[in-house]
């Protein structure tokens, strides 16, 4: 009798099929075992091909229905003929599965540390090699185990496997710029929170988060009616400082803040204004006009002086500096819009003295190993967000370059690795702006200076391809638009199989992780954020124990 291969041997791996053809460049084809249902095979599932000399860790990229006999497609069995249907399924009509081998591990290295022996795939398994569902042991061999090494951080579980974690290698994660992409509402923010928690908990880098929607600092929303979820501050206490541009909003949300951010005009440079050229509708000549102003008044005063000019002084300045009057007036009008729009945090420091420079404060926190979340409160318009993010990041960039150079000179220790999280990243990194803004520079080369970006975006096609190809690790939730999918897979070799996987992700809590921090691309069910298990793994006490401890403290203090 054709007994199922897996019966009678419960300890063995579950065999799902056999390799029948394939190539190194196009991937492998597997014939599905007759007793397996084609509906159990899902794109993105993690399987292991048992070759003669190597294990091949592979991902399912496509599933197909095939028939070998002629005539069966024209004359399919009637639905009443249960026997004929059962006979044909798995024999003449069968499932074919496309696999993409991602990594190979020599069999002789079984039992040794897999990290040193995992290799990119350079060959393919022999004909009829059996294919198994991956076991928990396979997953931990490839992705590491959180318990064994703190550099590994659990971010979720593979598809159809609940009992084993897929881990990010945080050391590698912070080495390069990373991206978290996905359509709106697919869980980008939750994923970002999880990644940030991992970095902070394991102290692999300090974070600066430009928190456009005030979701990371104190608490965030939860789609679907549940109460709010904790933010980073609630998890890590004084290791996280919350800065706010809009203290009123923070007060309304009852979110404690550590510092109120004010930005003086003197900090704003021409580059910051260029970044806003789309938002302010600036003409190309505005750039030249700005530089003329900088020449005339100096870097720290040009903006204050421009905003203060009346029509007469404009005329005088134009004549003296050979600037077109219309263009200077236009620039002045547009910058007045900017200053009016941002008046709650943009301060003319020629008129009003500000107590403390927010940038210095942020830098001193970062130097001290503390993480900074900058809440924007009500100031969520792209104009304000971009201005603030750019001004701060440019200063931080300068400071990091200086510190790194000093450390290269042997004078000081290298600065803490810094991860800057930006949302709506396509606004900073669009092909038109990426070469000019500071974020473009960081994405391209700042890993040498220990600064990397964590780019969070729903429209990756809007990001400069040159920058996308340099992104180290990409964590991608569902994307539907073909251009977005193309953009995410820029710089990924053999990406054709991954396209289908990416388009077939669930709309919630599923993500494809690929790149520098994982040895092979993998689809995960994202870990639950802010449940009891997550809280405990972040070092918070379980609820019952916490209550007990509070009661003990109260008793001790009042007795």
């Amino acid at each position: 009798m054709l007994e199922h291969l897996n019966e009678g041997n419960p300890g063995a791996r579950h065999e799902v099929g056999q390799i029948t053809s394939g190539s190194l460049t196009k991937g492998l084809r597997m014939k599905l075992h007759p007793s397996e249902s084609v509906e159990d095979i899902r794109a993105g599932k993690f399987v292991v091909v048992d070759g003669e000399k190597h294990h091949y860790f592979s991902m399912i990229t496509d599933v197909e229905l095939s028939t070998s006999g002629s005539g069966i497609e024209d004359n399919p069995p009637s639905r009443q003929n249960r026997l004929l249907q059962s006979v044909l399924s798995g024999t003449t009509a069968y499932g074919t599965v496309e696999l993409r081998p991602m990594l190979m591990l020599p069999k002789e290295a079984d039992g040794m540390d897999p990290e040193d022996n995992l290799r990119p795939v350079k060959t393919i398994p022999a004909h009829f090699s059996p294919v198994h569902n991956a076991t928990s042991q396979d997953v931990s061999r490839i992705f590491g185990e959180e318990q064994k090494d703190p550099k590994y951080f659990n971010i979720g579980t593979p598809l159809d496997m609940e009992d084993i974690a897929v881990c990010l290698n945080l050391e590698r994660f912070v080495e390069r710029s990373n991206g978290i992409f996905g359509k709106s509402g697919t869980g980008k923010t939750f994923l970002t929170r999880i990644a940030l928690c991992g970095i902070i908990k394991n102290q692999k880098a300090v974070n600066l988060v430009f928190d456009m929607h005030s979701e990371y600092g104190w608490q965030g929303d939860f789609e679907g009616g549940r109460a709010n979820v904790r933010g980073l501050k609630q998890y890590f206490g004084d290791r996280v400082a919350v800065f706010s541009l809009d203290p009123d909003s923070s007060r309304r949300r009852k979110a404690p803040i550590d510092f109120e951010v004010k930005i003086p005009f003197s900090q704003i440079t021409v580059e910051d204004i260029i970044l806003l050229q789309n938002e302010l509708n600036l003409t190309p000549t505005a750039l030249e006009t700005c530089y003329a102003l900088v020449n005339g008044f100096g870097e720290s005063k040009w903006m204050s002086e421009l905003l203060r000019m009346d029509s007469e002084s404009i005329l005088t300045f134009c004549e003296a500096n050979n600037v077109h009057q219309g263009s200077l007036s236009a620039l002045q009008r547009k910058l007045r819009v900017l200053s009016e729009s941002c008046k709650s945090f943009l301060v003319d420091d020629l008129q009003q003295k500000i107590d403390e420079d927010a940038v210095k404060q942020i830098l001193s926190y970062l130097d001290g190993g503390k993480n900074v979340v900058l809440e924007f409160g009500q100031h969520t318009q792209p104009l304000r967000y971009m201005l603030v993010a750019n001004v701060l990041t440019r200063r931080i960039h300068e400071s990091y370059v200086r510190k790194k150079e000093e450390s290269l000179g042997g004078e000081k220790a290298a600065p803490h690795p810094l991860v800057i999280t930006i949302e709506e990243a396509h606004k900073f990194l669009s092909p038109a702006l990426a070469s000019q803004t500071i974020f473009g520079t960081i994405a391209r080369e700042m890993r040498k200076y220990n600064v990397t970006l964590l780019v969070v975006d729903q429209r990756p096609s809007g990001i400069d391809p040159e920058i996308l190809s340099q992104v180290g690790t990409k964590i991608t939730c569902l994307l539907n638009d073909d251009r977005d999918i193309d953009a995410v897979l820029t710089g990924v070799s053999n990406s054709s199989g991954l396209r289908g996987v990416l388009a077939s992700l669930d709309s919630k809590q599923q993500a494809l992780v690929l790149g520098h921090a994982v040895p092979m691309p993998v689809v995960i069910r994202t870990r639950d954020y802010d449940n009891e298990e997550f809280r405990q793994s972040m070092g918070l006490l379980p609820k019952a124990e916490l209550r007990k401890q509070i009661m003990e403290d109260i008793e001790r203090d009042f007795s």
Partner: protein
Amino acid sequence: MDSEIIGEIIEASTTDFTAESKELHSPPAFGSFVKVVWHGGAESVSPVAADQGEDDPFDSFRQAAGGFGRAYRDEGKSVAPTLEPAIYAIVCQASTGPVDTGRRLRAFWKDEEEMREEHPELSEWLLVTRFQALTIGHSLNGTVQQLLPPQPAKLFSQVRNCTKEEITEITSRLDFLRTLINSRNAPAEEVIAACMLKAYEARNNDFDFLVSAGKELAGLLKDDYDRLQAIIRRVAPC
């Protein structure tokens, strides 16, 4: 416990044999599994035969034919076999006619009662029922080999029906289906359908058996979907 004798071999070859039915007009059912207790050459002698040596009617024949007698066969045999050595076959054809094939019969235009009274000679004396069976395998050392036997069955050997247990054991592998499909002496689709149903009955109507047998056939008939469909339709339980 052996089943009843149903025939005796009157013609044998490696691939099939013809036997005379013990009962006139009652050959074994079409597609049924039959066996011939087999005593092949020295290399394939089974310990079962050795154990039954006292009663083995062929022992002296074998020695006379240059084979090894019981004394040799008793040596070093310790495995307890489950099946006696036999050739297995499937009934694919049966016919009743005059013993003397040179003479054609004529119609009498009488009913059965009248015939019995008026022509008692037209019974086993003048008529004979013969059946043909396709060899599908043999058992050796207690296990079924889905191979043709090294020698054909001996003439005048007794043919018996297989027991349910034997049918279950034989059909635990289905390599013999290929032998049946390729047979030229029999209506292959009909034989296969009939023998599948016999095995299905012997296995207490196990639907899974039909499915796995069908899958085996589907592999063999991958280029002939119509033929496969024809067989499966015949065996599909209503």
